Structure formats: structure tokens, C-alpha cells
């Protein structure tokens, strides 16, 4: 009742002011989301495409799209899951368009698979162990590059972003069972490669 009286007594100027304050709060909230999740989205897209420029472009597009649809975000899933879903769809669209527009880009800027493994921190390991670890990481990058788009996405979300299966299912729009099956196939491929090469 009090609220009803309050609304009734609200002048257009006050309503405008309230809208402005709401808008500012939403903008602040969105800025916080960008700051918190941008590195993770960029990392996923970088691991997925191995192309720094493309990962930056898609990250920007992801947040642009998220900003446009921010009002529609109902918080049914976490912001991270929502953003990841946008990023996955953007990446899918990119590869689909690229297949259709094969004449536009004849080369990719993807980093070489061996180069990608160069980023492994040496930690406390001896030089020899570090080299062996780097070789194994390069093998994993090779397997990841050979996976289907869906398997690669699921594998990266699980083993790079460390998302739970339920979150992966929400991000990809698949059932948990399907996610498990894809993940199992991807891990088997990695296991076969690592085991095969280490013999």
C-alpha cells in the first residue's frame, strides 16, 4: 500500500531519475561482470581457436552481445555460464561462416601446436622433466586440434576452465549424458596419444 502511494506520487522527473539510477546500476553491474569474466572467456576462445586476434575479436563480440541482451538475462544460470554459451555460439557461427566464405580467408593466424605448448611454466621441474612435460602438452594440443568442434569445446571447458559437467551442459545446451560421452571420447583420444607416444 505504501509502495502504491509512493508510485502514485512519483512525478515524471522522479521516474526519469529512478530510471537513470537503475541504468547506472545496471551498467556498473555489467562492468563488474566484464571485469570478472573477460579473461576466462578470452582464455577459452584462445585455447579453442589458437588465434590471438580471433580470440580478441570474438571476446569483444561476446561482451557486446551480452551487453545488448543484459536486460534479458534472468539469472537462471550463472553469468559465466551465460557468457560461455554466447562465446560458444559465436565461435560456432564464425566457423560456419568461414566454411561458407572459404574464398575470403585463405590463411589462418592460428599459433603452431608446438608453439602453444611452449607456455608451460617450468615450476620446480628439472630441465629434462620440463622438456618431457612440454612434449606431452604438445601431444594434447595436437589431439585437441583433431577433435570435433563439440568434443573440443567440452574438453576445454572441463580441463582448462574446470567447469562442472552440469555447467558444461548448460553452456553447450546439451544433456549431461551427452557431455559425459563426448568428454570420455576426447579423454580416450588424449590417453591413446599420450600412451602411444610415451611407449
Amino acid at each position, binding site marked *: 500500500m505504501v509502495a502504491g502511494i509512493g508510485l502514485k506520487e512519483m512525478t515524471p522527473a522522479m521516474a526519469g531519475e529512478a530510471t537513470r539510477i537503475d541504468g547506472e546500476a545496471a551498467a556498473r553491474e555489467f562492468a563488474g561482470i566484464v571485469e570478472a569474466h573477460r*579473461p576466462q572467456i*578470452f*582464455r577459452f576462445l*584462445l*585455447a579453442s581457436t589458437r588465434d*590471438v*586476434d*580471433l*580470440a*580478441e*575479436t570474438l571476446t*569483444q563480440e561476446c561482451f557486446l552481445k551480452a551487453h545488448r541482451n543484459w536486460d534479458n538475462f534472468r539469472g537462471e544460470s550463472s553469468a559465466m555460464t551465460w557468457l560461455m554459451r554466447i562465446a560458444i555460439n559465436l565461435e560456432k557461427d564464425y566457423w560456419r561462416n568461414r566454411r561458407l566464405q572459404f*574464398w*575470403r580467408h585463405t590463411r589462418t593466424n592460428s599459433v603452431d601446436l608446438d608453439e*602453444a*605448448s*611452449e*607456455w*608451460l*611454466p617450468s615450476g620446480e621441474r628439472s630441465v629434462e622433466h620440463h622438456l618431457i*612435460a612440454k612434449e*606431452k*602438452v604438445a*601431444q*594434447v*594440443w595436437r589431439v585437441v586440434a583433431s577433435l570435433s568442434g563439440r568434443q573440443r569445446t567440452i574438453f*576445454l571447458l572441463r*580441463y*582448462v576452465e*574446470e567447469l562442472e559437467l552440469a555447467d558444461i551442459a548448460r553452456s553447450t545446451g546439451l544433456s549431461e549424458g551427452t557431455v559425459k560421452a563426448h568428454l570420455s571420447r576426447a*579423454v580416450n583420444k*588424449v*590417453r591413446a596419444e*599420450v*600412451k602411444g607416444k*610415451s611407449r
Partner: protein
Amino acid sequence: MTLHRDSEDMSQMDEALEQTLRDFRSSAHAWSESEYSRPHRPVRVHRTSWRVAASWALGCALALGSVAGGVYERHHVKEQAKIAAAATARQHKLDAERRIENEDLFAKVDRDVSREVPSAMEPLAQLMGDDSTE
């Protein structure tokens, strides 16, 4: 025993695999952090629509040119073949006419020569006739 060794191998393998996957994650994180902390480069600008249109126009012009060139070349070759065939026919006709003319001339010469000059063997034949009578 073999089964036990296999399961031991498997558990060691899985440990190794887990370590490899952890290393893979570390490499992805390190690479991403390094690229992310780098000063942002200008985002790659996609080719504008007029460039795409120009590419299409150029492509179409090239394709059209190739087709037109092919058609012209085919037509040209046909014309050349026609001209060559006509020239050959004309030449054959001329050759035939010339051959007939030559044959007529030779026949005429033969006739003239046989009428004006006696046979070269005639005196010898006469001598032979005289010998036999004797």
C-alpha cells in the same frame, strides 16, 4: 598377475594423464595471461563490403573474359579451318586443270613429233629386211 600389472599400469597411466592434463591447463592459462596482459592491439578489421563487391566484380569479369576468350578462339579456329579447306580445294582444282592442260600438251607434242619425224628404228628395220632377202 598380468591383470594386476595391467591395473597397476592403468593407474600409473591415469596419474600420468592427469599430470599431463594439469600441465595442459597450466600452458593454456600461462599463454592466455601473457596475451591478455599485453597492450591491446587494434582488433583486426574485417574487409568492408565494397571490397567484397569489388572482388566479386573482378572475379566475374575474369570469368566472363575467360569464357569470351574461349568462344572467340573456337570461332577463330573454325574460320581458319574453313579458309584452309577452301584454299586446299582451290589448289586441288588448279592442279587438276593444270594436269589436264599438260596431258593435252604432251599428247599434241607426241602427235606432232610422230608425224614430222620417221621412226628412228625404220632404217634399221629396212636393213634387216635386205639381209634376209640376200
